């Protein structure tokens, strides 16, 4: 959606690299000298979507800024698996303070950089959905409202994975978590009204908001690159499957992320100054069932007597996304 489709059909626009393209038109992740900002040896689970998303995003930011990125990390899986003493996987200046204050700490770093010059460094705050949509929400909103020069990236794996898969305000309806078990008359998470932080970010009229997915690398990189070229508060919400929490195969992480996008459950869009300016149009739309079936957290919807009512309700959510964001070509 954010870049010209490249007419190289063997590799298409969907693979990471493309030996047929000039170097500067290839994905950052295709580069032999990419920064690997999040280095090997981290302790993420097999097939971790967040580890992947973080490297995708930070490497792209590094490339966009000539390797001048400082990252502030909220408490959470990403923080814990990347920096257990005595080893860190980060190759960039990085700091973790608390669970709920990454946006504020980043605002402080940005303020210091403005005063001290900071060698042109740019600040990224990052956290999971818990650290962003729940406990860090106040600081995040404050950062947006002040228009601090920070890019905040939320890696959304839809629950508190670090503490053992508890529900967050980003957990989808019907999903099983440790605090919304698949028992009783309404198994899994409640059908709430939802908390769409990208839309809330847009309501602050910050200069740039985008959603992205680990399943669409080029789109993700283009968005991070664009965000790094903008001053002020920016927000990117990246969908990152969690094999542990979702009960999915580690090898299926990208596939599941792709199905989330192609079903319409996770719409990809961009917004400038509070207005949606671009959206990814579904390439091969699939029913939500294709997405749900691959995850044990939704297993109670299927089985001998599938819960067609609940599945239909989830499909309705996807349909609404398709309508409101215009995800299907007219």
């Amino acid at each position: 959606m954010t870049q010209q489709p490249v007419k190289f059909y063997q590799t298409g626009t969907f693979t990471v690299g493309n030996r047929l393209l000039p170097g500067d038109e290839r994905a950052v992740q295709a580069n032999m000298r990419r920064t690997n900002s999040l280095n090997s040896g981290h302790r993420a689970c097999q097939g971790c979507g967040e580890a992947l998303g973080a490297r995708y995003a930070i490497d792209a930011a590094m490339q966009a800024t000539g390797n001048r990125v400082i990252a502030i990390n909220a408490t959470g899986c990403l923080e814990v698996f990347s920096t257990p003493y005595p080893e860190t996987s980060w190759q960039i200046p990085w700091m973790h303070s608390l669970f709920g204050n990454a946006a504020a700490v980043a605002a402080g770093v940005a303020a210091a950089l403005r005063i001290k010059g900071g060698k042109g460094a740019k600040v990224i705050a990052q956290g999971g959905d818990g650290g962003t949509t729940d406990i860090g929400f106040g600081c995040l909103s404050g950062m947006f409202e002040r228009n601090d020069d920070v890019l905040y990236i939320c890696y959304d794996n839809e629950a508190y994975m670090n503490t053992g898969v508890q529900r967050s305000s980003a957990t989808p309806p019907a999903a099983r978590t440790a605090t919304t078990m698949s028992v009783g008359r309404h198994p899994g998470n409640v059908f709430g009204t939802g908390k769409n932080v990208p839309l809330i970010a847009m309501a602050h009229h910050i200069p740039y908001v985008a959603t992205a997915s680990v399943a669409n690398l080029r789109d993700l990189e283009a968005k991070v690159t664009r965000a790094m070229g903008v001053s002020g508060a920016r927000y990117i919400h990246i969908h990152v499957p969690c094999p542990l929490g979702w009960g999915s195969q580690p090898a299926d992480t990208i596939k599941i992320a792709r199905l989330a996008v192609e079903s319409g459950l996770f719409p990809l869009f961009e917004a400038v100054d509070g207005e949606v300016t671009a959206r990814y149009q579904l390439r091969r739309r699939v029913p939500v069932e294709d997405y749900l079936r691959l995850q044990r957290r939704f297993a109670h919807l299927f089985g001998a007597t599938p819960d067609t009512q609940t599945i239909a309700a989830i499909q309705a959510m996807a349909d609404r996304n398709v309508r409101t964001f215009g995800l299907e070509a007219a």
Partner: protein
Amino acid sequence: MKKPFAITLDPGSSLANHTGSWRNNRPVYVDRLPPCNNACPAGENIQGWLYHAESGDYRKAWEELVTNNPLPACMGRVCYHPCETACNRATLDSAVGIHAVERFLGDEALRQGWALPAPAADSGKRVLVVGAGPSGLSAAYQLRRMGHAVTIAEAGPMTGGMMRFGIPKYRLPRDILDGEIKRIADLGVEIKLNSRVDSILEAMTAGRYDAAFLAVGAHIAKRAYIPAGGAARILDAVSVLRGMEDTDQPMLGRRVVVYGGGNTALDVARTAKRLGASEAIIVYRRTREKMPAHDFEVQEALEEGIMIKWLSTIKRMEDAALTVEKMQLDDQGFPQPTGEFETLEADSLVLALGQDVDLSLLDKVPGLEIADGVVKVDRNMMTGHAGIFAGGDMVPSERTVTVAIGHGKKAARNIDAWLRGGKYAAPEKHELATVERLNTWYYTDAPQTVQPALDIARRQSSFDEVVGGLDERNAQFEARRCLSCGNCFECDNCYGVCPDNAVIKLGPGRRFEFNYDYCKGCGMCAAECPCGAIAMVPETI
């Protein structure tokens, strides 16, 4: 920086933590057999040469191509491309137009005058090849490259065999055929025309040949008894097509009927049309579905105004009229007479009922076995007589140019091994890269490029080539439609999608390696590999 203890750490220090120990499955890079390669009777590495064509390195692509087939320009035109039938891309949109790219490469080589690779050092061995058709040429080429001295003995006045005498010009222009054969001759293959071998053993002794490859084409037309009046003009397809290569073209008249349902029948009918026949009618005893001719040829013939009478047999010919009996299919699908007759005006009747090989040169060769008009050979293409190999139309097989070229190559490898006192062991075939092995999400949608075709009027009146070639731009486009099934094409997906950076990119053309120190065995690389070039195998303790 004097760093505070424990809370502040040096960058990237997690490299000390070897997460490879978490793994219970390991990814390995594999080369799986692309279905096109698997289907190619000539054993071409189609995916291999397409790979180079994709990047615009046509010379390299052509060099890869001629490793297995010295006649790509011809093959790109006349091969019935089973590769395309097998192509995985057909499940997405349409098969890659492999034949069109092959033809482009062949033509490009002729245009640029690219030479075949120089032969290896002289082996001191001499091989006699009988027949200058596709099989013989292929064997001669391969044997010459291996350093052997090769002589082709051709009975006829021209090279090319059935490529010349069986395939009309409008499908295979003669300058193309001549150009590609000349290139083989230029390697040092001796070609003796008008040199009929009457006895292979005598010829070998006389020429002090260490081995021989028999590649005589099926030039003898099969006949059928059709009662005919004295003035009736009945010819066979072989002589008609052969006659096209003479200075005097065959006289067929204004109304020509061709009897038969193979490709040859179509070739003759279309030739008749081009020779000025106002009516060219094919009479075939079964239905279109049962017709052995390729559908695209039937299509082209119909476009050119050829008429076909299905479910009909010819009972007799009187002067300028044929009596035809209508047939109907029985339960088993065999045509049965109905007793209904009709009359068809015809100046001439051409019989295209199949061909036989002249096997007289094999008389009295000890050990050599003949059955059903063809020579028995073993798995190594050797006949029952040591040192005498056979291929092409002479052996039990489908009779196509591509099969013949494959036979030639295979025989050459075995002859070479035999000459060196060994046995050729073909490398084990890789596991087939079926479509289930692929992750086709990554390929963008791109239907096959349509090759230009000559307009109907000129097709009906001239022997100009009907189907045009691709230009460089669309040849490259077409090459890039290849999915590279089972073979890494360096798309960087594995390198990109590894959450543990455990894939090492080795640089252009050098592919990738796994860093098992860090690979946790999640399998994402294998799952997201578009072409199925990564396998997950269990770790053994």
